[in-house]
């Protein structure tokens, strides 16, 4: 019974004290307003971006269909631009979006990377001070929890009111968890605008390419909740075991600085320096020097001889199909092997860097949360890779169709074969939709397990703090 009455009392007391701490109170109000502002502006930008994406995708399709009569290989060089769809949840957690391109040109002979990284059109300040809801939750809210909570138990001890609470019948366990619930309630207030966005706005902004996925929204909400709870437990633990509130604050600030500022940066420096990536210059040079080689010319010649043998003819002109179409497709397949190897190696190196960075989640819950929420918002590297792979599959399918058409139909045209809208229509639209999240969970098991580990550590710390308070009671 006492526990039940203690919670509202504690909440009221903590709230009053927070209001009395003028500086922190105003800081909290500022952060809350900022949170509302960034969600509103992110929502507007996302709406505009989605509309543009749909419009340009449609006009690109129209351009493809209305390109007129031409050789299918010319059409393959003309190509198609495809645009990465953006989830409405990216408003909350833009993640790597500004650092990755969103448009890929699908054309003959080349596997292209995504182009137009928004960060290249930004002034330097935007990079070093981008305010997003994710940033507020991951970096600023823990600091606010610290500023609100460092005095929760150490302050009671400083003022001597802790002993009075014991005398009034409060148990250390009830007191600790009431304080935790009160502090968590304050933290959760800041999640309210996010929840409203997730429940009311994001579903309305979804379309067939970015279907609203409750699993993704749920993971983000749960991740934020667990993360704030971990910080609440950490704050109260330090507050409980510190002799003075000053020492508690100092310790918590050092922990916050290390967990939120230092460790992520040190970890990514270590990850990227321990696994080296080829420079874009070297990558490009390797690609050219490994595709356009004498070996390739020999392979084409060998393919030609084999084909002639297979059809028992002496000249390609005697083949029952157009040789140029077959040769083009052979060249594509040859190039694709090199692309698979080189892009595969680069992808593997990037994945190794990501994997090493993920281990930093052992030392910082922020690293772990970031990995989970960017995954759920489809703004991480892995989602970008899936999009790029889907685009490349589509490019290869286009080449098979177009080169196949040359092979089948160009022979009779005496080198001036032209196809029309009937062929262009055979090339399907590129409709890449964000994948469902639940089947993807195995890809993210490491950060999910690490966040659970942090939660368990937090609970153990809480229990330890309760024991510490119990010893004081005696």
């Amino acid at each position, binding site marked *: 019974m006492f526990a039940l009455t203690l919670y509202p009392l504690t909440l009221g007391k903590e709230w009053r004290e927070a209001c009395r701490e003028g500086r922190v109170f105003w800081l909290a109000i500022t952060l809350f307003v900022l949170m509302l502002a960034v969600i509103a502006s992110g929502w507007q930008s996302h709406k505009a971006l989605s509309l*543009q994406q749909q419009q340009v995708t449609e006009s690109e399709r129209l351009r493809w269909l209305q390109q007129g009569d031409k050789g299918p290989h010319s059409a393959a060089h003309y190509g198609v631009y495809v645009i990465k769809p953006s989830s409405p949840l990216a408003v909350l957690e833009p993640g790597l979006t500004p650092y990755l391109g969103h448009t890929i040109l699908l054309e003959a002979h080349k596997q292209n990377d995504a182009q137009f990284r928004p960060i290249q059109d930004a002034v330097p*300040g935007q990079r070093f*001070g981008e305010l997003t809801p994710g940033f507020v939750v991951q970096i600023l809210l823990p600091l606010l929890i610290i500023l609100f909570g460092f005095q929760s138990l150490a302050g009671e001890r400083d003022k001597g009111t802790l002993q009075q609470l014991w005398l009034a019948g409060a148990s250390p366990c009830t007191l600790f968890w009431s304080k935790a619930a009160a502090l968590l309630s304050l933290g959760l207030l800041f999640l309210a605008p996010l929840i409203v966005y997730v429940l009311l706005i994001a579903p309305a902004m979804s379309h067939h390419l970015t279907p609203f996925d409750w699993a993704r929204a749920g993971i983000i909400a749960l991740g934020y909740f667990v993360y704030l709870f971990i910080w609440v437990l950490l704050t109260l633990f330090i507050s409980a075991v510190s002799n003075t509130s*000053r020492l508690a604050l100092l310790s918590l600030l050092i922990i916050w600085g290390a967990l939120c500022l230092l460790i992520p940066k040190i970890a*990514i420096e270590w990850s990227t320096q321990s696994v080296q990536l080829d420079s874009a210059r070297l990558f490009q040079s390797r690609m050219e020097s490994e595709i356009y080689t004498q070996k390739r010319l020999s392979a084409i010649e060998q393919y030609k001889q084999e084909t002639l043998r297979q059809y028992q003819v002496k000249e390609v002109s005697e083949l029952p199909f157009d040789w140029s179409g077959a040769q083009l497709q052979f060249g594509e397949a040859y190039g694709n092997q090199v692309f698979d190897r080189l892009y595969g190696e680069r992808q593997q190196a990037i994945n190794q860097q990501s994997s090493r960075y993920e281990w930093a989640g052992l030392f910082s819950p922020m690293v772990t949360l970031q990995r989970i929420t960017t995954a759920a918002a489809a703004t991480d590297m892995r989602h970008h890779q899936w999009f790029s792979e889907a685009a490349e599959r589509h490019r290869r399918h286009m080449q098979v169709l177009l080169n196949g058409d040359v092979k089948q139909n160009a022979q009779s045209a005496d080198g001036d074969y032209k196809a029309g809208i009937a062929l262009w229509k055979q090339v399907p639209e590129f409709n890449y939709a964000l994948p469902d999240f639940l089947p993807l969970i195995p890809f993210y098991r490491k950060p999910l397990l690490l966040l659970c580990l942090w939660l368990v550590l937090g609970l153990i710390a809480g229990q330890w703090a309760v024991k510490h308070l119990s010893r004081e009671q005696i």
Partner: protein
Amino acid sequence: MMNGLVACHEFKHGWREKLLPTLLVITLLLTGFSFYNGYQWSKQQQAVIAAAQLEQQQAIAQAQQALVKRRATTPINWWDDVTDLRGYAFYLMVNYALKPPQAMAPVAVGQSDVLPYFFRLTVGKKQDFIHQHETVHPLLLQLGKFDLAFFTVYLLPLLIIVACYSALSQEKHSGQLLSLMVQGLSPLRLLLIQLTVRAGVIVIPLIAGSLLLLIIFQPEASALALLGLGGLLLLYALFWLALCALVISFGKTASYNISTLIACWLAWVIIIPALGNSWMQWMHPVPSRIHYVDTLRQVTDQVEQSTANTLANFFQDHPELASNNAAKPLDHYSVKKLASINAIEKTMQPVQQAFEQHLIQQQRSAAQWQLLSPASITQSALSQLAGNGLEGHQHFMAQTQQYHAQLRGYFQTRIIAAVGRGDFAPCEGCNANITLTEFSAIPVFSYRSYAPSIQWLPIGCLATMVLIMAYVALIRVGGLGRAQ
């Protein structure tokens, strides 16, 4: 004499409490680590640039060998032939525009990891190369490098706050201040000594360490640049010291001081710069790159569909290239290609300019907004000093575009002359003549180094803020002494 004694006592006390040695070790470690990261990045850039230069030289040497071979054997497809002007200009050329890192580059990575520092160019349209970029893990770009600029702007204030928040207030609230005053030590003098000793353990190793590392590893760094760096670090440290003094001058508890100082740090280092960015994006939104793609496609289609018009416009713009021989019409494939490249670039120019214009407007707004945040002032000044700011990149871009135009001009003249002479089809069914022999005469990019201009207004603003805060703190601490 007394100052020395108090300083000595303060130092010994801090050392015994293990606060000062801890801060000293943290500062030294982080200075070394942050310098190492910036230095590594700069070395990596240098290695890429050296490899690109080597590749370019080797390509020219191979082209010269191919020339000898081509003279002796049967020709190959023109698009595979380096001795054919068209093949070389449109497809085979290995030609780089490179921006080497400056001597002070390890100080601040700035935008150098996001913006390109090399371009591989052909005579193709500039839209084909200006969006190239280095391959870096995007997470590293998002989190930013742990360089000296990051350490200074974000962590140095926190270290200063942790070292100094309890100065004077500890003595005041423990009652020691009165007895010290009786012995002739004013609160102001005590505060100054405490701040100097405590901050000295952080600021001196940072400045001395970074200058020493630069002198050892970047001996080409100028004395003026080193002096500028030292001055800037000192000024920024003084800002946070003055702020500490101001907060302490209110005579509240150490807990009050630290929570106020942290709130100030949050406001000046995180919130104000972030608000500034949101404001800039709202006031001067950058045009959409998705629409850019759409426009580029439309323009390319229009140009391709009206070849005759494109050719006519091209020769109207370049009358010096038009043929006087009406018997040899210049409507060859390569001339059409050159004409369409020129036409696309010309039509896309306003779209390109719209992006540049918005960036300039944002830069102007950022320059005004940064006056509100000492962190933004310092960040921007350090990036500029390192040559890795936006201005340095724009300087490189301007040089690259100038060079690209020169390169195009070089090949344009020769290709059109070759078409005029009929070199690409000397007779019905004949192979093309050799049209490119002087590889060493092809223009080569040469980077003119960028001398960063010192922005005195923001630095003056920062100095003024320091003076005002120090003056107010001085008056208030004086008053505190009288009250005691």
